[in-house]
């Protein structure tokens, strides 16, 4: 069955937008094809969450023009707080406008590309053509992937050349300070052979009563012997329904490590898939979430093993309060031929209220004999014996609970490589669980 959806933008709208952004012709055509496909493609079908009444397609305006910042000092306080002093390479997108970029001398001298996606489409055509929706996310997977391409209006492009090992993390902040903003963000991070990069992004609403929608696709490529550490903290407003798809492709002997703090206040579908294509590739996904209010969320984390000796780890910890409900799907898939692969996963959900709901669904799909795999899942309340132990040292019940919850969410907080982002995530957790 296909659902006919009248799309908010026509082919002509998309073409004009592409012209205004001075995009090359191939990309305009790409958008048009994707728009055509979007009309007939079905919606994604996240396991155990019905999204047919969710709004992913209706939004007030496609693009909001915002003023840029001439220095980091001009950033609003909330944003300034997450850009740690001394952070050398940082990109700020304000609503749909590339508002500030600072690239360190090291990056420039080593030939690293760190720029907004639309500049990359213009200036680095060959690289974009090679990686944009080719080997990671496919444009025609479903309606939302094709809409992302058709209506693309933001995102970042990172390319680290062969043999370049970057110590300093790259930081991107996507701030929404206009209630009408919608995002169709597309981010690509490429670590070429023998290179290494750490990229950290924030999605941050600084206005309330937002009326837009958010559609994010990130594609991450670790070529042979490369390493990508990808941190993200999403804090989008209650009014925003989000579809976020972060996908990685790890080649031979490469590593992709995700640290995701998914703290949106609105309904969210998050999909995080890592393809361990190469032999001895390594994928590690750590996700923490807090749900509150009447929020509905679905977090699907999947690691697919193709390579021999590939190792995949999934850790998901969620805290649900009020009447929030979440589905945690963890899937470890080992394809035929991926001998000696190891797929491990752990999903744990803490429920703080009677009416909160969290379901952990650990799934192992194994098509090869000579492998190891394991999973652990639990859903429950804060352990009364842990509270007793902490309280027996004089800590109040409220603080004891706080400690346990922060501890429970620490696996992601503790490994985020940017101090400001770490602090922000801690504060967001504090605010959400209070």
């Amino acid at each position, binding site marked *: 069955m296909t659902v006919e959806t009248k799309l908010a933008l026509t082919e002509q709208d998309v073409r004009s937008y592409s012209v205004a952004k001075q995009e090359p012709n191939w990309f305009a055509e790409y958008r048009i094809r994707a728009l055509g496909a979007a009309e007939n493609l079905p919606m994604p079908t996240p396991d155990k969450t019905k999204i047919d009444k969710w709004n992913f397609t209706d939004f007030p305006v496609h693009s909001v023009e915002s003023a840029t910042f001439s220095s980091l000092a001009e950033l609003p306080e909330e944003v300034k707080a997450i850009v740690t002093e001394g952070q050398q390479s940082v990109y700020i997108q304000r609503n749909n406008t590339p508002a500030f970029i600072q690239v360190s001398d090291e990056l420039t001298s080593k030939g690293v590309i760190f720029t907004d996606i639309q500049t990359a489409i213009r200036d680095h055509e060959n690289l974009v053509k090679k990686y944009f929706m080719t080997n990671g996310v496919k444009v025609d997977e479903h309606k939302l992937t094709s809409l992302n391409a058709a209506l693309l209006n933001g995102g970042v492009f990172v390319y680290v050349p062969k043999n370049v090992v970057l110590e300093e993390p790259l930081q991107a902040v996507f701030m929404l300070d206009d209630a009408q903003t919608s995002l169709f963000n597309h981010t690509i991070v490429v670590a070429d052979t023998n290179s290494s990069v750490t990229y950290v992004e924030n999605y941050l609403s600084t206005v309330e009563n937002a009326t837009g929608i958010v559609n994010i696709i990130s594609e991450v490529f670790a070529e042979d012997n490369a390493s990508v550490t990808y941190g993200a903290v999403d804090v989008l407003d209650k009014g925003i329904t989000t579809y976020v798809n972060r996908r990685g492709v790890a080649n031979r002997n490469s590593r992709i490590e995700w640290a995701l703090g998914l703290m949106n206040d609105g309904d969210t579908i998050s999909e995080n898939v890592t393809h361990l294509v190469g032999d001895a590739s390594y994928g590690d996904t750590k996700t923490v979430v807090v749900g509150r209010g009447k929020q509905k969320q679905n977090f699907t984390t999947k690691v697919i093993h193709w390579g021999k000796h590939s190792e995949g780890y999934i850790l998901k910890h969620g805290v649900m309060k009020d009447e929030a409900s979440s589905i945690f799907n963890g899937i470890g898939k080992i394809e035929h031929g991926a001998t000696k692969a190891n797929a491990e996963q752990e999903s744990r959900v803490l429920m703080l209220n009677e009416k909160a709901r969290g379901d952990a669904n650990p799934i192992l799909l194994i098509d090869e004999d000579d492998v190891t795999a394991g999973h652990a899942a639990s859903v429950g309340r804060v352990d009364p014996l842990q509270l007793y132990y902490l309280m027996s040292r*004089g800590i109040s019940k409220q603080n004891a609970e706080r400690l346990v919850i922060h501890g429970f969410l620490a696996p992601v907080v503790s490994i985020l490589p940017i101090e400001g982002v770490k602090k922000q995530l801690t504060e967001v957790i504090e605010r959400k669980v209070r």
Partner: protein
Amino acid sequence: MSTLVIQDLHVAIDGKEILKGVNLTINTNEIHAIMGPNGTGKSTLASAIMGHPKYEVTSGSVHLDGEDVLEMEVDERAQAGLFLAMQYPSEITGVTNADFLRSAINARREEGDEISIMKFIRDLDKKMEFLEMDQDMAQRYLNEGFSGGEKKRNEILQMMMIQPKFAVLDEIDSGLDIDALKVVSNGINEMRGEGFGCLIITHYQRLLNYITPDHVHVMMQGKVVKSGGPELAHKLEAQGYDWIKDELGIEDETVGQEA
């Protein structure tokens, strides 16, 4: 001087009565030892004093300097000066030992008057060294992956950092080798003195080779059946418990079976 008074304490777990009228008075500057075979209610007494959620006090009272302890929440009991070194301390992932201890100390101080980080670290380093603990244990998650001996030392470390008026040590010696036993005993002896009272619960006399108690009590069938001085512990070491059972006409010392 502070006083902890336990009067006719009856405690049940899952509806089954374990303590059947315990009477005990402990002053600061005193060390008491409670001995007794397995299953006689010793650990239940410790848990009931601290307020373990599974233990139900059915009658009797516990007072600390006249204040009704049983009316207090667990954290209030700790704030009032009670401490329990637990037999099976919880493991709490993601919370470092240092953060936890600092929270415990700051819980006793007014907001705005938190202990300075430097002072805290100095104090912690000193006490960890005293207990021959690896410095990295401060940054490890609370009890997570700690060996049995490390957990016991960590309990004593907490006691030394918090400086309670009364500490109940529930089988702090179990599973310790002789070197660890000496270290733990040193920690307890370091606390000994004005302003500190201690109730040591143990099966074995050997801990009392390092800590000389002022009073020794024997528990059987959920009650204190005999009290004496340090010589009582020596007699138990030499002769076991049977002479007490004979003396009191007790056949089964445990609380497991009803008469």
